[in-house]
């Protein structure tokens, strides 16, 4: 508000200004009138007294002088004149005149001056008889002239007084009002700021009595009994989770700042976390002490921090899992390869065939476990296909139905216009399976498991870990009416190896894998749960446009025999060996190198010798990516297959961009390897 728009302050300033003006005018009038008036009155009084005194004194002198000469006294005029002159020593200022009884003037001394006069007559006596009159008078004209001059000077003085006493104080007053106005504006701004602040703010006096509170104070808090606002600091802090009222008060009494954090719960499971600080405020001179309490709602911030923390934990675990998977896959690759080779040679029905099949199956099971672990990591195979989840739901439900307790009813709702997602079908199976298994476990006494699939359009929806989802998504809802979870449990369910079951009842990887899959696909997940009510997971996966068609898997053809010279590179010699044996068995000429630099030298020496290069990625001194770049630098059209325990930071698109024609995940079976090589060579030779 501009300074002059405060009507009360402006009217107050005008009123004071008017009062000051009136007072100063009165002072100026007094200053203008008092000196001349006082001067005149004092002089007039003095002259009156003086005239009377002169008249009385001189008449007495004259009476004494003429004693005994009542008839002829007036002839002594020269003596009478001298007597009067002697008694009028002030330069003749006083005019004295002796009159006979008949009014004739005998003598007159002194300046007569001009009108008006102060006059006094005294009788001249001889033996008690009046023989004449002494008239003594003084002209008031000089006094009036001096009074006029003094009045003029006083008027000038009064004008100066008026100007200086009115103008200067009023200017000071106006400045003070301006400053007061600014202070009021500042105060108003500060008050508005406090009032409109989203934080809960209140101020108490030194006794803890609340003397000010802002609007958030009344709106935010949800726990005032009977809706009665606290009147004291202690009323406010009493009963807060994690806050001890006595400790707060003692801290403040010591002149220190109290800081604290507490949680409060509202209706349902809504939780509010607040960061509070209470600070002593001392005015100038420490005479006045107040305390200001400020409380900030940090619920969202805490959630984001927790999500970030969980995300980092998941990333760490994923990296760890990826490293382990790589090493194990390297071990499994020759086992699987050699067992496949031996199995082809083993006599049907022989124990060798039987044992080799067990080895092969066990190896493949181990590979599956490794692939699950890799799902925790974003480095896992991300190559997906365009896929409608409806089929996955039906497959999973078919698998689940027989293993679920009979008391669990399964409800499936799939939107007819459900859009496709780009995902690995196996991962989708895993995702849905894990969610459904968790739901079934939450309903030991039976219940209802609902699976819903929709296409939804989201606008700035935040998922569990604070990621904002905007756009069109395929929504997968898995909900149950089981035991539900409390907040603490809910906050940790996506952590790897976190399980609510007892020993042997779960690996703790289920929901962590779900989280990894969803995150890798660029989706989001939300969960809501209430103890005794049930749990609901909402998985959002980016929907593909309608024009993007589905791809369906084709049946794997048997590996065909081929020809050509292949270069196999892997830092694990056993893998080089088994790959070499498998591919040579299919008719290829295979050269192997367990050192990527050695392989590069071999290629450099005869670039045109090789029709295809198969390389691992994670190798010491030279990675598969770097080797591929070198090879393509020598020969741009050389086809390269990447065969790795995991693709490190290489996504499928990036891998293809680097010239990798195919990407194989270890451990790879002999058939898969043969088909991949044949397919790449077929593309090259077209």
């Amino acid at each position, binding site marked *: 508000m501009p300074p002059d728009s405060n009507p009360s302050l402006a009217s107050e300033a005008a009123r004071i200004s008017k009062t000051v003006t009136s007072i100063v005018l009165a002072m100026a009038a007094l200053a203008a009138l008092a000196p001349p008036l006082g001067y005149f009155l004092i002089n007039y009084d003095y002259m009156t007294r003086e005239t009377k005194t002169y008249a009385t004194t001189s008449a007495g002198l004259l009476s004494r002088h003429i*004693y005994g*000469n009542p008839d*002829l006294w007036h*002839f*002594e*005029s*020269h*003596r009478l*004149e*001298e007597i009067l002159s002697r008694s009028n020593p002030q330069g003749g200022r006083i005019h004295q005149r002796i009159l006979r009884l008949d009014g004739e003037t005998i003598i007159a001394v002194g300046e007569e001056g001009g009108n008006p006069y102060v006059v006094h007559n005294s009788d001249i006596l001889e033996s008690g008889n009046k023989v004449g009159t002494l008239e003594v008078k003084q002209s008031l004209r000089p006094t009036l002239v001096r009074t006029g001059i003094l009045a003029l000077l006083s008027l000038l003085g009064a004008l100066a007084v008026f100007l200086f006493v009115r103008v200067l104080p009023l200017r000071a007053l106006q400045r003070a009002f301006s400053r007061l106005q600014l202070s009021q504006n500042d105060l108003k701004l500060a008050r508005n700021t406090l009032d409109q602040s989203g934080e809960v703010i209140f101020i108490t006096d030194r006794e803890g009595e609340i003397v000010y509170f802002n609007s958030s104070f009344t709106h935010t808090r949800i726990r005032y009994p009977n809706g009665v606002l606290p009147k004291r600091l202690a009323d406010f802090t009493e009963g807060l989770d994690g806050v001890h009222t006595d400790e707060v008060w003692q801290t403040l009494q010591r002149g220190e700042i109290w800081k604290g954090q507490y949680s409060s719960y509202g209706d349902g499971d809504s939780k509010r976390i607040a960061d509070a600080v209470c600070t002593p405020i001392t005015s100038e001179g420490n005479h006045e002490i107040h305390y200001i309490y400020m409380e900030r709602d940090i619920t969202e911030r805490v959630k984001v921090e927790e999500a970030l923390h969980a995300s980092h934990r998941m990333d760490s675990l994923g990296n760890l899992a990826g490293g382990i998977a790589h090493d194990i896959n390297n071990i499994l690759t020759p086992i699987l390869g050699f067992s496949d080779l031996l199995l082809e040679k083993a006599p049907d029905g022989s124990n060798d065939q039987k044992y080799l099949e067990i080895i092969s199956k066990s190896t493949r099971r181990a590979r599956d476990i490794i692939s699950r672990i890799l799902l925790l990591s974003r480095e896992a195979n991300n190559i997906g296909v365009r896929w409608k989840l409806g089929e996955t739901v039906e497959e999973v439900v078919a698998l689940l139905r027989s293993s679920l307790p009979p008391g669990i009813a399964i409800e499936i709702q799939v939107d007819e216009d459900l859009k496709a997602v780009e995902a690995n079908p196996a991962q989708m199976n895993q995702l849905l399976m894990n969610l459904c298994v968790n739901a079934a476990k939450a309903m030991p006494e039976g219940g209802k498991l609902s699976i819903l699939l929709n296409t939804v359009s989201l606008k700035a929806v935040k998922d569990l870990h604070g990621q904002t989802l905007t756009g069109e998504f395929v929504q997968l809802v898995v909900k149950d009416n089981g035991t539900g979870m409390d907040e603490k449990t809910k906050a940790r369910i996506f952590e790897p190896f976190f399980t609510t079951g007892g020993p042997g009842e779960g690996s703790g990887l289920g929901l962590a894998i779900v989280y990894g899959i969803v995150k890798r696909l660029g989706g989001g997940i939300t969960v809501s749960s209430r103890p005794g009510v049930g749990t609901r997971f909402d998985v959002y996966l980016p929907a593909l446009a309608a024009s993007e068609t589905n791809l369906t898997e084709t049946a794997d053809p048997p590996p065909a025999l081929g020809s050509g010279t292949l270069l196999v590179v892997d830092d694990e010699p056993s893998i080089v060996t088994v790959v070499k044996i498998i591919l040579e068995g299919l008719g290829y000429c295979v050269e192997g190198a367990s050192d990527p630099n050695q392989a590069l030298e071999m290629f450099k020496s005869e670039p045109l010798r090789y029709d295809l290069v198969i390389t691992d990625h994670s190798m010491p001194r030279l990675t598969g990516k770097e080797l591929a770049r070198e090879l393509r630098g020598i020969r741009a059209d050389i086809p390269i297959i990447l065969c790795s325990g995991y693709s490190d930071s290489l996504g499928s698109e990036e891998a293809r961009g680097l010239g990798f024609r195919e990407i194989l995940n270890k451990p790879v079976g002999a058939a898969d390897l043969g088909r991949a090589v044949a397919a790449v060579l077929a593309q090259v030779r077209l």
Partner: protein
Amino acid sequence: MNWLKIIGPGLAVAVLIGITTSQSIASESLRVGGTGAALGLIRALCAGFAESHEGLVVKVPRSLGSTGGIKALLAGKLDLAVSSRPLRKNERQDGVREILIGRTPLVFVTSRSDLDGNINSADVVAMFGLASRTWPDGMRAYIVVRPKGESDFHLLAKGISGMEAALNRAWAKPGIPLAYTDQDNLDRAESLPGSLAMAALTTVITEKRRVARLALDRVPATLETIGNGTYRLEKPIYLMSAPGRGPVPTDFVAFVQRPQGHAILLASGILPVTP
């Protein structure tokens, strides 16, 4: 009261003359007044004149001063005026005539009786000029000053070198009392201890004043010294007459100028003017 001393003899003479006159010549009167210095002289002359004028009623008012006497004469309030100065131009009207009847020394007088009867003119100037507030022997001196309008003031101012300035200084000094009449003058000279005043010798003699007369610069103030010119401070005495006042004033003037009158003058401290 001092004035009783002054007018007492006069009144006694008047009463005596009046009583006598009322027995022989009824309604014959003589009114004479003026300078206070000669009031004693006038009374003595009137007493001598009355011896040859039975039934004469003489009125001698208290001191009017020379000027006042002349005014009263001109106003018809007096038959004769006695003055210590001649007529001024403005006073010479209506046939007023002045007759110099004699001269009297102006003598310094004091209430002190312990002096050797002399005072130096330098001391007089110093004391009247307030340069010295004491007598030469150290006693506190109190001067008696006459008003400027009196003839004595001017005679004294002109009679001694430096005296005019001294008198003006004394006259202007606030608090210095002025003796407006000759009688006041001698009253103060008598009553003030250590007084110094100047008076006509005739006044001192005729009024029998108890003051000590001082020679000036060793020259005594006597009729002889003014007669031979060794003493220059003197005062003339005039009689002023106006026409139409009857024969008595004229007779009185003639009486004064006769040897009988001269004898009275000499006895009264006046050196008569001889034709």
